[in-house]
């Protein structure tokens, strides 16, 4: 099935002041859209044409993987954000305490991994097959699904995600990212 650009779950100005409308105009309407369009061109007439997006990410490689996984990652990233960020529920807090010692410890470690990701990539909170949680980082379009991990939360650390609003200051971008996290989405992913 063809890749599609989903509607954003909020208006393009709704994440201000943490993420500007200008950023979303580029990040969503240009970058994300380009991955969708390029991906569709690449899969047309191939064995990948009718795969759903999860399978495409798990089974493709090279250029098709790069575009398909970037579609997956951005679809997921937009859902990780919300203009009305509410505190995580007790269930999620308990899981974060169990694995990382506390919500703040988790945020600190996730931030370290996001800042330590060299070049363009993504920071992730994932659920391992054994039920434990982990924080990982991928380069380029990398997606934890290919390592058998279930993504729960992600932060885009390609420069295009923050350059318009924060220039080279990735740490400042991360501070604002935390103000937008949709913890209810994270909990839903935890299952």
């Amino acid at each position: 099935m063809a890749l599609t650009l989903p509607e954003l779950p909020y208006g393009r100005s709704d994440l201000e002041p943490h993420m500007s409308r200008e950023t979303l105009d580029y990040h969503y309407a240009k970058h994300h859209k380009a991955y969708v369009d390029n991906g569709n061109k690449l899969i047309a007439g191939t064995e990948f044409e009718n795969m759903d997006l999860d399978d495409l990410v798990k089974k493709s490689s090279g250029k098709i993987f790069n575009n398909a996984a970037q579609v997956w990652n951005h679809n997921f990233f937009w859902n990780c954000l919300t203009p009305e960020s509410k505190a995580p529920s007790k269930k999620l807090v308990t899981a974060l305490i169990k694995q990382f010692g506390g919500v703040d410890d988790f945020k600190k470690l996730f931030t370290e991994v996001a800042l330590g990701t060299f070049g363009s990539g993504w920071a992730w909170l994932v659920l391992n097959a054994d039920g434990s949680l982990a924080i990982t980082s991928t380069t380029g379009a990398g997606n934890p699904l290919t390592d058998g991990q279930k993504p729960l939360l992600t932060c885009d650390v390609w420069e295009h995600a923050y350059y318009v609003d924060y220039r080279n200051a990735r740490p400042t971008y991360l501070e604002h990212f935390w103000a937008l996290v949709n913890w209810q989405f994270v909990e839903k992913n935890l299952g």
Partner: protein
Amino acid sequence: MKHVLPDLPYAVDALEPHIDQRTMKLHHDMHHASYVKALNKALEEAPELQSQTAEWLLMNLNEVPEAIRTAVRNNAGGHVNHGMFWRSMDASGGGFPSGPLLAAIDRDFSGYENFKAEFEKAGTKLFGSGWAWLVVDKRGNDKLQILATSGHDNPLSSGYHPLLLNDVWEHAYYLKHENRRPEYLKNWWAITNWPEVEQRYQQFQQQEPAQSSKTPPPKIDADLKQALHETAQEQIHEVMTKREASKLVVKEKSVTSGKSHSVNGKSG
């Protein structure tokens, strides 16, 4: 010896309108500076390497202790690449290469226009952050070759001699060209400092015979060498991306498992 941030060889607004002042200032004062700082910091743990040049470190990554090898590779690369990049541009640049360099470009790319198109293509196709390069292949009859590398990987680490490079990290063009990387690459020829590139080629031709009889070729990371010898740019990128990804995951996993151990320790 501490590595130092070199001054720009021109005023911060000298390359307007091709490189806007805002981009130039951030790129030099913040990005390049951060690589110099991080390189010096990494080398605090290896005093024996502090007297080596950043180029030497890139040519001898296998001599760098494993604990700081990735940091040195990334930050010595960031330092060397940006230093060379600044000198690859000039307000009076543009025009055409000449002399022996032009002859070599004609020989290996069937003409300058074709070379430009291939170089732009390599820069456009590189996925994520990296560099497009014109290099001399020292083990390939000194033929000129176009490469693309991820992150700040420098072809010095795989035995090539770099002549020209263009930065295709988003920070190099985002404020002016937004997501239009091909437009940035195309416009960049207006400021290319060909006299500098010609001089680099001349130096290579003068020094190379003496060098190859004296010093052994650099020890090359096998994956990197294999990656760079592939001709298709996507393949190069794919191999390097996988290496990067696996390295990072290993690193992050060790961070994460360290943490969960301490958590286990608390509860157990």
